[in-house]
């Protein structure tokens, strides 16, 4: 009886293993073999969790690019398919997701997740498997400090985002320049480094620091530092924010304290289109400044085409489009151009090509990578909400720039 049972077990195990192998082979050949099968691109996105607003905007950007590229015949004659996993905004889950996408789902290519915080561990995982990692929202120093050769950030490097703002303050006559400034910043690898850099630049110009503290990135931790900043009466506030609630909480507290700085610039938040205005109210948004590389009214023809496609697919207006959409869309554009040039899905060829110094085009403008994967030719702009519209104001005189509103209008109440 026993030997027979053991034989059954052995046979069963062998059958299962064989079936598994067959399934593995077929899945592998489906994703990368036959010329008619779609190109599968894997991405982990924060569809829930702290970054869900950005993550879902990123998903819209990726989906929009896929539908546009497929509408034009796909890449190398093959349709493109996305395989998106939710990382719940977790730096550990994002690693698991890319491992699964690469080793289990056998995706052909990978696109990056949202935020510097998640891109850093995710890119290291992709690097381990030799995958190129083109991303649009991992521009913080944390990502490039890893010195991986597979990372390519199509967006503006975070460190330089506030450069046009600093240049503008420097250009103001001494009588118009703010004399005091506050630099509250969230404890975030995206938000705090650029604020600290701006602070040192402003101090070099003789602008006195009235407040400079890093606070935890927790909703409950925003009101107290906001009240402290209001108490200083600083003429300028440079807020290191990573999302809408941070900016909104500061704006609300400032208004409650009857404090209206002459200049209020936030690292992120006001660039999130309708998500920002629905949280703070359109009237209160007036005068708020934010750095970025793209806006809905960009004269770039590629951007105008994308905006038209976005409005057709999702509705809304150009000003209401989250800048994350453009960052995600740019990832697709860059990969498309590289794969088309290589006539291959080889990740090593993709990495070599992107490091070759070639200049590619995206809705955010030109893209050319240095050895670290930073986009060397991205242009930083400063945007401002004016009359319910999100417009480019700096650098002064740049194509598309309109006159900056200064000082900031009072709160609308």
């Amino acid at each position, binding site marked *: 009886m026993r030997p027979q049972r053991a034989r059954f077990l052995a046979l069963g195990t062998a059958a299962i293993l064989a079936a598994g192998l067959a399934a593995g082979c077929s899945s592998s050949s489906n994703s990368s073999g036959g010329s008619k099968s779609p190109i599968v691109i894997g991405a982990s996105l924060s569809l829930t969790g702290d970054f*869900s*607003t950005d993550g879902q905007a990123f998903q819209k950007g990726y989906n929009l690019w896929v539908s546009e590229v497929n509408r034009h015949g796909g890449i190398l004659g093959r349709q493109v398919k996305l395989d998106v996993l939710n990382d719940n905004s977790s730096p550990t889950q994002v690693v698991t997701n890319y491992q699964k996408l690469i080793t289990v789902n056998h995706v052909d290519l990978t696109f990056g997740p949202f935020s510097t915080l998640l891109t850093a561990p995710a890119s290291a995982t992709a690097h381990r498997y030799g995958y190129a990692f083109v991303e649009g929202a991992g521009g913080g120093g944390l990502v490039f400090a890893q010195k991986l050769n597979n990372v390519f950030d199509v967006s503006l490097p975070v460190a330089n985002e506030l450069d046009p703002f600093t240049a503008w303050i420097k250009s103001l006559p001494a009588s118009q320049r703010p004399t005091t400034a506050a630099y509250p910043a969230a404890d975030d690898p995206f938000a705090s480094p650029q604020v600290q850099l701006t602070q040192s630049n402003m101090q070099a110009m003789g602008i006195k620091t009235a407040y400079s503290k890093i606070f935890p990135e927790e909703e409950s931790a925003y*009101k107290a530092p906001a009240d402290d900043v209001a108490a200083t009466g600083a003429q300028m506030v440079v807020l290191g924010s990573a999302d809408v609630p941070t900016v909104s909480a*500061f704006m609300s507290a400032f208004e409650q304290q009857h404090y209206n700085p002459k200049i209020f610039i936030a690292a992120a938040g006001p660039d999130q289109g309708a998500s920002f205005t629905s*949280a703070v109210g359109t009237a209160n948004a007036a005068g708020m400044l934010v750095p970025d590389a793209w806006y809905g009214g960009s004269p770039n023809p590629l951007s105008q085409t994308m905006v038209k496609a976005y409005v057709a697919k999702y509705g809304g207006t150009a000003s209401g489009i989250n800048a994350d959409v453009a960052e995600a869309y740019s990832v697709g554009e860059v990969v498309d151009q590289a794969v088309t040039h290589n006539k291959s899905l080889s990740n090593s060829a993709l990495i070599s090509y992107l490091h070759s110094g070639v200049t590619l085009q995206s809705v955010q403008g030109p893209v050319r990578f240095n050895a670290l994967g930073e986009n060397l030719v991205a242009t930083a702009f400063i945007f401002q909400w004016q009359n319910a519209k999100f417009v480019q104001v700096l650098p002064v005189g740049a194509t598309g720039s309109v006159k900056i509103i200064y000082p900031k209008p009072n709160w609308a109440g």
Partner: protein
Amino acid sequence: MTRQVYQAVVDGILGGAVYALMAVGLTLIFGVLDIINIAQGILVVVGAYLSYALSVHLHVDLFLGLLVTVPAMFVIGVAIYWAFIRPLRGRERTSMSLLACYAVAIIAEGVLYRVFGPSYVSLQASYITASVRVFGFYLPYIYLYGFVLAVALVALLYALLYRTKFGRSIRATMQNETAARLIGINVNRVAALTFGIGVAVTAAGGMVYGATSGGFNPNSGYDLISRLLAIIILGGLGSIGGALAAGVLMITLESVVDIWSPNWAILVFYAVLVLVLTVRPAGLFGRQAARAQ
């Protein structure tokens, strides 16, 4: 500096009341059912979204809207109890209820994402950004109203618990469920109604949370739950007044420490909890004390 400390104390007292509003339902449910409702955070957000929907679509004032959202949340609470909590039996009931409540949180989050999307929204009203100047300090009306609402709700819950027959049934169930059954109390009914009341008062907490936060989305509940749990543990599990006292104490301490170091402020919040529990393991108004009142 002195002025900043005064401002922080005022902020802490008013802000603490907002947290008490969110936590009071949690402590009531634990007191009666021995259930840690870890879905409380998302239920606060559900309350905020209900106020948002009434305000945006029907232009109903936020406080007036409570006349609708409180009963609506009561119904939601009773439904959650009947669907997820009542079926749990046996010695593992308390630990299983953690999983059940987590399931409630995930389902509620999914529904909110489906209905409202991931974008942040906030409640708007003239009194949210307006403030009154008292002794040189600007006190936001929304926090003042929230404070009054918290005190009124705590008083109302006390009246319900200690001045009504139903309250006696609740307290009897809190003290000894088996004995309560033996004297003819319908424990299941009491439990369902208490769960409903606990969730109903969360509607008020949700509204004030929505009005005082920088914006909320379906995910916002997860940031709340650890703080709410800390508050009810410090106040004494099951103690309604304790939740108010602990909320005010912890947020005040946090606001004061924040003047020197915002990062340490969060740590102090939990350090105080550990410190108090070392001296008084049952919290400020411990369970036995609360039940004996």
